[in-house]
């Protein structure tokens, strides 16, 4: 079992066109959900892994990958794999920036994440004004991967992408 991605370079610009339907600013490549994509006998074999088991976006992502590859002239087979399990560490720096620009605070490290979700520590930066005077509203948010926060300085409510290790 390997945590390395195995993606044919020719396919990268094609796959970057597919975004997470629930976070449209984030490409699936920056999300780290594409684990391998290789061409064998003119067919592209793609392995994707879910962020959360129940992530309803996976079916759509699979269909979208098929569509962009079809446009690029490839038939494809998509397989959903569970191991190794996805972690927020696989989100690229560009992906983290896209999240922040979109108004979703990017995941902190595992320890800091525990502090904000369990111990009420105020360190998540508000995506609107940058203040760290923010508080947890709910450990669960609009999708499985997020928690709800609010800024006590500018009052902006925002999502925080939970750390998953």
């Amino acid at each position, binding site marked *: 079992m390997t945590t390395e991605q195995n993606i044919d370079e020719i396919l990268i610009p094609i796959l970057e066109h597919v975004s997470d339907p629930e976070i449209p600013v984030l490409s699936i490549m920056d999300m780290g959900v594409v684990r391998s994509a290789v061409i064998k006998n003119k067919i592209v074999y793609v392995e994707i892994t879910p962020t959360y088991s*129940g992530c309803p976006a996976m079916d759509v992502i699979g269909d979208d990958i098929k569509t962009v590859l079809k446009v690029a002239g490839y038939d494809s087979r998509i397989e959903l794999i*569970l*191991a190794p399990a996805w972690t927020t560490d696989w989100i690229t720096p560009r992906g983290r920036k896209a999240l922040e620009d979109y108004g979703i605070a990017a995941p902190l490290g595992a320890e800091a994440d525990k502090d904000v979700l369990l111990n009420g520590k105020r360190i998540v930066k508000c995506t609107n004004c940058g203040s760290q005077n923010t508080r947890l509203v*709910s*450990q669960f948010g609009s999708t499985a991967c997020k928690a*709800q926060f609010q800024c006590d300085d500018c009052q902006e409510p925002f999502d925080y992408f*939970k750390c998953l290790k």
Partner: protein
Amino acid sequence: MKNENLYNYILGIADNSLILGQRLGELTGHGPSLETDIACTNMSLDLFGQVRSYYQYAAKLKGGDATEDTIAFLRKERDYVNVLLVEQPDRDFAYTMARQFLFDVYHLLFLQELQKSHDITLTAIAKKSIKEVSYHQRFSTDWIKRLGDGTTVSHDKMQEAIDSLWTYTDELFHQTAADKAMVAEGIGVDVTALKVKYYSLVNAVLEEATLKIPESKWFQKGGKKGIHTEHFGYILSNMQYMQLAYPNMEW
């Protein structure tokens, strides 16, 4: 069927998550507050996601026309082997959180062991699920403490919920024939070995929450053999309504 023990073993794990997921899903739009409503349905979604992985695997073992959907929706009451705890209804939020907590503590201990299984599909599902389930346990533990060590009213309601659900906890550690066969093959988890740890973890939280640990030594059982409480028929009729009304319908 070849691998019949493995098939039954998978159902023994997955049915718990299916029925608990259904119970939590019933709270959609009915939670006591927006945040807790969303939390319960998020946990429900995690459980359904896990169930899909288990049932897809079970369907592959069964072969023929079996799919994750036929396994989820087209069995009769006696064929569901979930523990009685998870089918208990949402009487109030204290019950919902007590049920969740009493299951989460078990679920996490179970998945920690399942990660060591010789079956690579089960270890993959376990490693994926464990991240989600540890988050559920944090959430439910938090509410046990908050309500237990809260106002007189919240304390009494939480105590009542724990007292009445306690009778369903022992069944978590009963072994079925499929369990024993799978433990022997290094695939299954020996649930009997989790019991001491389970009660020590649960009791520590109850104490911190200023709740009394129930003294009753009499426990209900039957779910693992398909003998369910009176609530189960109602869950199934809800879950199976679409398939009964429109046989073979698909999304």
